[in-house]
């Protein structure tokens, strides 16, 4: 569809531009400013060039946090996508069950992120938690505050519990968009349920699944509040993800220079992925037989 060409449309975009400039550009400039200076106090600052960047890039704890972050996001995708698609396939197609399922699925998405952490502390503590007590009663010692493995298991359970519904909702929306005629044709041909899934449903869900992959990757890459409340980054540093480490440097130790350099690198990584996201999104559906 060709649009009207008119630069006066800028006036309509102006309010958004002003507000996002105030909330994004000015703060980002401050970060750039911090990242190249050493600040001792008000009015006392020295230009240090790329020193903070070098320091941050050589920080072994940052490398660990980065790998941990990729591992976490990778696991999230591996578990949540198949599970979400499976749930979407089980959901009813019409009737009151549709509304009921949608509302139930959306519920975890509307709980404040720190409350998610709280829910899972209460649920998994060995003394008062249902899950923690159940596992310990089976004879397996389970304590997410002491064992790194248990902390990871608890975090993954929490993450899967929290966000699989989003994947399911997206996949369900994709499934609903498939015309009924496809299924009738498949029925006439005597196609098996697997064949229908493999050759009709899966290709038709390509668009929404791409979005699901990228959204889940992005948001899990930025995770902060849930692990902060649940494990506080521990035991040790075993669940310290990028955001947690960044806040530790910036607010905990108040190392403005390294924190700002770290922020810019972090932001660039995310920017790279959002660019890929945008490119993929623009091309989704093109070249797909209608």
């Amino acid at each position: 569809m060709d649009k009207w060409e008119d630069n006066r449309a800028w006036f309509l975009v102006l309010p958004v531009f002003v507000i996002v400039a105030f909330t994004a550009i000015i703060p980002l400039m401050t970060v750039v400013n911090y990242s190249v200076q050493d600040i001792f106090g008000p009015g006392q600052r020295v230009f240090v060039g790329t020193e903070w960047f070098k320091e941050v890039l050589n920080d072994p704890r940052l490398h660990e946090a980065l790998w941990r972050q990729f591992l976490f996001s990778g696991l999230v995708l591996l578990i949540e996508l198949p599970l979400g698609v499976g749930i979407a396939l089980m959901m009813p197609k019409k009737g009151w069950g549709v509304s009921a399922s949608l509302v139930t699925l959306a519920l975890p998405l509307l709980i404040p992120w720190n409350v998610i952490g709280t829910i899972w502390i209460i649920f998994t503590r060995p003394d008062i938690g249902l899950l923690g007590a159940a596992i310990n009663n089976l004879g397996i010692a389970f304590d997410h505050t002491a064992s790194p493995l248990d902390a990871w298991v608890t975090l993954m359970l929490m993450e899967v519990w929290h966000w699989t519904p989003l994947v399911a909702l997206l996949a369900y929306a994709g499934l609903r968009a498939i015309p009924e005629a496809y299924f009738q044709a498949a029925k006439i041909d005597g196609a098996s349920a697997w064949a229908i899934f493999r050759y009709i449903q899966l290709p038709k869900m390509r668009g929404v699944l791409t979005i699901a992959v990228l959204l889940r990757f992005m948001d899990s890459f930025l995770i902060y509040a849930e692990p902060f409340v649940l494990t506080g980054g521990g035991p040790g540093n075993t669940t310290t993800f990028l955001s947690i480490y960044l806040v530790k440097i910036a607010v905990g130790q108040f190392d403005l220079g390294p924190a700002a350099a770290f922020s810019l690198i972090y932001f660039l990584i995310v920017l790279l992925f959002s660019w890929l996201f945008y490119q993929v999104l623009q091309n989704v559906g093109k070249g797909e037989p209608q």
Partner: protein
Amino acid sequence: MKIRYRTLGLLFYFGLLMLPIYWMLNMSLRTNADILGAFSLYPTDITFGNYLKIFTDKSWYSGYINSIIYVSINTAISLTTALPAAYAFSRYRFLGDGQVFFWLLTNRMAPAAVFLLPFFQLYSTFGLIDTHIAVALAHCLFNVPLAVWILEGFMSGVPREIDETAYLDGYSFPRFFITLFLPLIRAGVGVTAFFCFMFSWVELLMARTLTTTVAKPIAATMTRTVSATGLDWGLLAAAGILTIVPGALVIWFVRNHMAKGFALGRV
């Protein structure tokens, strides 16, 4: 027969989904001594004391009021600024439109942690720390781009002939937009409001950093309790249950439109 297995599987999953929430509900209906004293799958001696404390103690219930105030302000700002912008992106080609659209999107993906310190400085300069408007503005960082994105999708679904006919009939732009166009995309406006509400409601990091006492959100009130010694699990659980209620109410209102918002893939 196949249908039945599916339904059973789904019910099983929903059971698992509700289990942690049920457990918190269970805790919220018991006293702290009861929770620590005996392990029980359901509250044997139901008490509403925890809820009563939250509803009568100002340091608790003001947290909910603060959260609802800044979430509402944020939703209002996001919608009013995003509506004209989304119309521009959906109808016009103009200098730098693609670049601006992408730049807006990148803010949806910006790590909140990156913006903490500069936000604090910026809002201190304007004397906005510990006000509702500060949190509402900070949340615009991700909600305004999101609103533009979702609304643009809904607006592009309305044929342009409608606009052309209206202008030929002598409608001015504001009159056309408000009386004709908005009613056509009201589902989209509802879905957008839902997502703005949702993302502002669940965010903690910025809201906590920009407030101290007057505008402190409920989420921050809860973290304060977590770090205190001799933690009251019952009270914490009751506060948690109450944070779910506004979200559940909002979902109920948009339940029929929600699937469509997701179908556009613009979350």
